[in-house]
């Protein structure tokens, strides 16, 4: 069975690119447009990994990460945050919230795949 990755980003073009790239190598992708949409979609779905932007309306990335870590189902799944901030502060906040790793925007599809491979096989 294919692994399922959820991608959360308020930018349609980024969600599309992520979906396309991950689909190409065999992952199933669930898209959500912001934190609240993600929470709604997670109610019924099983995911193996979360890829989330940090800056979003309606529950931003950090809040989403904290929320998902509080769910027993998702306590241990890998979570990668998409960040444009290169300051360590954001990465620290992310890790404190429970993120596993990060990718800095802008990124190329190969970089995305390399990071996914580090945390999910």
């Amino acid at each position, binding site marked *: 069975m294919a692994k399922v990755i959820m991608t959360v980003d*308020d*930018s*349609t*073009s*980024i969600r*599309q*690119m992520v979906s*396309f790239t991950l689909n190409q190598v065999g992952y199933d992708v669930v898209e959500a447009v912001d934190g609240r949409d993600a929470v709604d979609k997670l109610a019924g779905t099983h995911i193996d990994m979360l890829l989330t932007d940090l*800056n*979003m*309306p309606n529950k931003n990335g950090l809040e989403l990460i904290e929320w998902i*870590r509080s769910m027993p189902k998702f*306590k*241990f*799944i*890998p*979570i990668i945050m998409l960040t*444009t901030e*290169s*300051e360590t502060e954001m990465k620290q906040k992310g*890790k404190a919230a*429970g*993120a*596993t*790793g*990060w*990718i*800095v*925007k*802008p*990124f190329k599809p*190969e*970089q995305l795949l*390399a*990071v996914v*491979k*580090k*945390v*999910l*096989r």
Partner: protein
Amino acid sequence: MDESGRFIEEFCLEAEELLSGVEDAVLDIEENPGDQEAVNRLFRAMHTIKGSGAMFGFDAVSEFTHHVETVLDNVRNGTVPVSKTLIDLILMSRDRITAMLAEANGGGPPLDSQEGEEIVASLKALLYSDDTEPPVEKSSKEAPEENFVPVTPAPENEVVYRIRLSPDLDIFSTGMDPVMLLYDLADMGECCVVAQTEKVPDLENLSPESCYFSWDIILPTTKSVNAIRDVFIFVEDDCEIVIETVEEKGIASQEVSAPRLGDILVERGDIERKILDEEFDTHKKIGERLVESGALSKEKLKSALTEQTIVSKMHKSSVASTVRVPSDRLDKLINLVGELVITQARLTQVASTREDTELGESVEEIERLTGELRDSVLNIRMMPIGTIFNKFRRLVRDMSSQLNKEIELVTQGAETELDKTVLERLDDPLVHLIRNSLDHGVEPPEVREQRGKSQKGTIVLSAGHKGTNVVITIQDDGAGLNVEAIRQKAVEGGLISEHAELSDKKIFSQIFAPGFSTVRNVTSVSGRGVGMDVVKRTIDSLRGRIDIDSVPGEWTKVTLILPLTLAIINGLLVRIEDDFFVLPLMSVEECVEIKSKEVEMINGRNILNVRGDMVPYIRLRDRFHMGNRRPEREHVVITDVNNSRIGFVVDHVIGGHQTVIKPLGPAFKDIKNVSGATILGDGTVALILDTSVLLESA
């Protein structure tokens, strides 16, 4: 590239939407400066355009938008107040961005960079609205952080690293499974991993959400140390990681001997030199002694031993030390072992009827040892197939220039080992098959080009183990087989009937019939029609199978399946009357039970209906003239011989049986249907049947 075009389009649509939203939001703010939500929307719009723009190559747009985003961020947190200047600037920026996007997409007029710079300057001015001096200009873009780059330049030689990975107890809660790290390391070279389990507590104290393991990894790799560090980039803060160089291949001098275990342990800090020296007085192996005395844990010992093995391997030269042995001495040894195996089987059977546990234990031990001895001895005669692969390269090179074709030979699995005798007898058939590919298979460059193929043809010669067999394939990307031509020829030669409806594969296998050849002209290379059937006979005599498949115009593939050794057979033991026979298991598909009355005779031929499939059969009882007393139920062993299914009717199928083959004596060497004999556990002789010969004489 289609995809990236699609994304660009999508981004432009998205940006358009966002920018019209910006217009609305700005006008909202103008009316109601306290509208925090609108400010947030504005900020996010710019943030998205900046981020996504950079993703899809709109660098100039991204850079410009960055300035607007910064200002809006400050408006968000109250540092910059909402003013008419701000509103105007944002609208101007919005227009500017729209124009930049249009220009980038080729639909808009080229822009005056001066204008852009002025807007940026004004935006910056907003940030420093007091008379305070603007701080010394940092680079307008924060130094873009590199995502870790998967490729780093590799050093020339292989280096052995010792890596110790100790994750924190609660590493799982970061979502990282340490196994991922091990996989990443395994991708970099043939590493050996030893888990250290000392910290695992008792079951009562064990928490399933905590990680108590640490790992020692020995990794020989050509990748750089930075590449190894990159593996741990996400867990640097959650793990203790030590990476040390153990050995550099290029540097080890000739005289350096294999590292000693004690030295390794001291070097790693697992043991003190003092304790090591103390232990040296007795004669037991140092590692064991250290464990016994409690100075060292078992896992640490295992880990150090692993390191020792790997580094020693690196030191050994590629030519392993060998001993020459005359072939006949080996043969004698193999015969003796064969006899031993047979006698041991009898011993086991006899012991099983006695109720003596002591005897039983010893006999079991002998069985195990005999099995090991048999495997070792048979292994002696195994040689890698690469030894004959190499001469084929020369053959291909010479012949392809002779034929004015461009052909490359690719080999895979050269390290696959085969019995020496089998290898020797395979030589001629393989040469013939490769010649076929060269001569008839791969087309001349002009023809290939016409057909849209690359001018250079490829023949792939591959070998591998599959179960207890060796599979060798010869595949060319040439013209493929002409089904019609083969069919015609087979009909002409009386091999198949004009009206027979046969699958392509069955038609292909007609090539192996004697006297068959579709080539009009006989060249010096091939076409005499004696090749393929000789090939088949050789493969049969090796108790193997040969298959040929093809897609006309694209490829032809010949597959050879051979048993690993000639001395042992995997067979199916059957009984007819009071006698036992063995059928080679390789060709057996299934066994069915039938009542004697059920058999149908259609058109005077013996045919059986197996789940709707018509399978002809041979009654071995009749063939061997063993009397007419048929049991009520008989068993049929359905085999695949030369791509046709055929059943052999026997009284009873007993089961799988692996045993040593004994050749029949010289007095029996002309017997047709039997290829050898074997001795069963109770001393009875079972004859091994040659299924293809049986089929032919049906």
